[in-house]
């Protein structure tokens, strides 16, 4: 696998220690020491200068661009049917009439949060009633109704519960216990992939205007001097767990995530115990959850920190969001919500409905997908303002599909088309599209789907 060959760049020094740590737990004495060190003053960070992310979205894009169906004969001559974009796999994607049908509730005649709750609109016209219906849906704990309801957006105060309802998260005592066990696992066993996560959080979430506040929920980085707690540490390890909520670290160790590979066309990477290469009885999935994080991975979790402040809840919601949606954004499949289809959908929409823009950008060496890919892979997290992002993710849940990401990407290009027509280089095009933080997502989608002359 092409991706795994990059793993040699992960290793700091010396390699054999790292592999040992893959599989071995720590002796009790060492664990105690670790618990003490956990609370020591100063940063106890590993030296990460030699670590690089396994892959970044643009590496992944290169892989996708080179996908071909060996059975498909395109012919050498260009015709009006020729796809001018980067993706050369002929998957079926929807056109605007089909999307309008699919996303009917985003139409001009239906009330939306993100549009019809703006200041100029009196709340009696839509918002109040919508909130009332939302409360009713929650009271009846009707998951299907919640999914239908949320297509028009969720009121901020109800969102956390609605998402939990739609994702069927109920936080039973056994769920909380499972999470606590994962946390203990984090303390007792070190994983190489922890360093990747650490580095990713430091590179992305920690620098983000919205999410920097939650960096400790993603990975506990700063170990402060708690002189009194150092003593507690040796007596009661679970007390330390209260201070750190390493969602991503727990996630790497959560073998229940392996279950999603049943419907994911990717396979989890395997590793073999020393000296037993190729012998299945000695195979171990690595990381334990089978998911190698890439650069930007922590941004899937960051927005959720705005909704859930109980760590186990945050964890459950993230895990469910991952195994239902996010995994599709970085594995190769023919699923309509898979990243390949999304890329193709985006390119097709642009080529069909904004042909002049598409052609122009292609001519100046600025293939649109090269710019929009990173937005889609991250489900726009870190690019949109948080309140807008949450309105977008409402619709992902409501329609149980990621296609809206491709539609939004195309809508953004349409919105900035005038400026884009004037640029003459890829760098200039990137600059025009560098800052999406002021965009209002729902009007853009609505105009693109329902108000553009096609």
């Amino acid at each position, binding site marked *: 696998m092409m991706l795994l060959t990059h793993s040699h760049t992960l290793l700091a020094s010396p390699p054999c220690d790292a592999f040992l740590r893959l599989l071995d737990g720590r002796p009790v004495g060492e664990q105690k020491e670790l618990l003490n060190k956990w609370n020591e003053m100063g*940063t106890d960070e590993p030296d990460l200068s030699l670590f690089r992310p396994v892959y970044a979205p643009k590496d992944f894009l290169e892989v996708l661009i080179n996908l071909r169906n060996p059975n498909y004969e395109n012919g050498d001559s260009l015709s009006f049917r020729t796809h001018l974009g980067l993706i050369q796999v002929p998957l079926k994607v929807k056109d605007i009439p089909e999307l309008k049908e699919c996303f009917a509730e985003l139409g001009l005649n239906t009330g939306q949060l993100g549009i019809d709750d*703006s*200041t100029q609109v009196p*709340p009696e016209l839509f918002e109040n009633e919508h909130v009332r219906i939302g409360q009713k849906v929650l009271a009846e704990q009707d998951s299907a109704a919640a999914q239908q309801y949320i297509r028009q957006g969720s*009121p*901020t*105060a109800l*969102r*956390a519960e609605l998402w939990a309802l739609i994702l069927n998260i109920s936080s039973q005592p056994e769920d909380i216990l499972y999470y606590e066990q994962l946390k203990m696992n984090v303390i007792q066993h070190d994983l190489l992939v922890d360093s990747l996560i650490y580095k990713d959080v430091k590179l992305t979430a*920690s*620098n*983000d*205007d*919205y999410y*920097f*506040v*939650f*960096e*400790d*929920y993603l990975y506990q980085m*700063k170990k*402060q*001097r*708690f*002189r*009194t*707690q150092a003593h507690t540490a040796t007596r009661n390890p679970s007390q330390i767990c209260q*201070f750190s909520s390493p969602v991503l670290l727990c996630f790497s160790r959560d073998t229940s995530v392996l279950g999603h590979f049943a419907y994911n066309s990717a396979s989890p990477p395997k590793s073999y115990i020393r000296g037993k290469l190729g012998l299945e009885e000695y195979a171990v999935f690595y990381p334990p959850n089978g998911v190698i994080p890439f650069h930007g991975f922590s941004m899937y979790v960051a927005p959720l*920190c*705005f*909704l*859930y*402040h109980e760590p186990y809840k945050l964890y459950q919601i993230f895990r469910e969001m991952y195994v239902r949606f996010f995994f599709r954004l970085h594995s190769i499949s023919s699923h309509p919500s898979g990243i390949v289809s999304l890329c193709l959908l985006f390119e097709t929409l642009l080529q069909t409905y904004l042909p002049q823009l598409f052609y122009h950008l292609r001519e100046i060496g600025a293939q649109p997908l090269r710019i929009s890919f990173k937005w889609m892979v991250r489900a726009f997290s870190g690019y949109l*303002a*948080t*309140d807008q992002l*949450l309105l977008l993710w409402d619709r992902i849940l409501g329609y149980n599909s990621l296609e809206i990401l491709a539609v939004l990407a195309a809508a953004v290009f349409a919105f900035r088309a005038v400026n884009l027509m004037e640029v003459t280089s890829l760098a200039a095009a990137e600059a025009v599209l560098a800052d999406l933080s002021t965009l*209002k997502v729902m009007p853009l989608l609505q105009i693109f789907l329902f108000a553009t002359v096609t």
Partner: protein
Amino acid sequence: MAGKVKWVTDIEKSVLINNFEKRGWVQVTENEDWNFYWMSVQTIRNVFSVETGYRLSDDQIVNHFPNHYELTRKDLMVKNIKRYRKELEKEGSPLAEKDENGKYLYLDFVPVTYMLPADYNLFVEEFRKSPSSTWIMKPCGKAQGKGIFLINKLSQIKKWSRDSKTSTFVPQSTKEAYVISLYVSNPLLIGGRKFDLRLYVLVSTYRPLRCYMYKLGFCRFCTVKYTPSTSELDNMFVHLTNVAIQKHGEDYNHIHGGKWTVNNLRLYLESTRGKEVTSKLFDEIHWIIVQSLKAVAPVMNNDKHCFECYGYDIIIDDKLKPWLIEVNASPSLTSSTANDRILKYNLINDTLNIAVPNGEIPDCKWNKSPPKEVLGNYEILYDEELAQSDGADRELRSRPGQPLGPRASRTRDSGRSALSTWK
């Protein structure tokens, strides 16, 4: 009204100067004829002092009230609020209502505070009632977190006791005056960190009171996780949110500067706590700002040449109760991040639009009632004139605090704010 506005400043900050220049105003020195002087607090003291002061003419405006320190000095602010509360109590106002423990229901928004050394004995009495509490010592006349420290033992402030034999300073020297307040040791934490709110409030006149709140306030986060542990009382990175302090911390990040917009805070609170309690919190914040201004209004020199833009510092505790920590007369115009620069630039811009209408040479006799269109990111916080003329036909409008984004207050179109539904 020909001629361009002539401006002077003794604060060399680009957010100011760029704003003057973009209006085509002309820079002059303070010895020449000037129309607009953005001065530091030292300078305002000279302008209005008995010996060196001079009369301002009708076409001159300055950015401070002569005795702003009634609000912006920590000890005087507390004194004025205490006096205000007693007055309301004496006249039997319902605002001064107390609960069964003797705490004001509506006016308890400043932590218990004493002046040192003057109130030392009173303080000791209070301290002994709950000896495990933490108190914060702040020098009256300093800013940026300088000289602040926390104590939890009487011995730590021995030298302020009046009959202390070790005391060597001159009594009542204003430079050494401190206030000691009950420390809010249960602040609301987000991501495990303490933060405070910086809100900008513009006052154009005190009598009648007319004040505006800038919608784009921000939260300042500590770089280090909060702990009330007594072993960390001297760790300023845990306790003091001033950027001047935090920026020296190891984990200070220059990209976001540890700042969150108030809208982010709102989104977070609404999502995790619900809309009602969040709206209530913001209403309370507006309330305490207005009450603090009302408290000092009677003693303020309501000079018609003056306006002032204050920096209010507010801390929210874990019961979602806001506390007024202090008011700054000269909020920092230094920008710590790119967003910060944009915010402060716009703040000055909107402030000037209100204080100097149309950017023309001012006339102090004007009624200080700007049209709604020039408010920019300000919204009316309280307009005493409008509130009084309202009288009985005032109805409760929709809640003033709106969630998220560039949403203006819904009551803008009425010219008065729902924030002033209480008198």
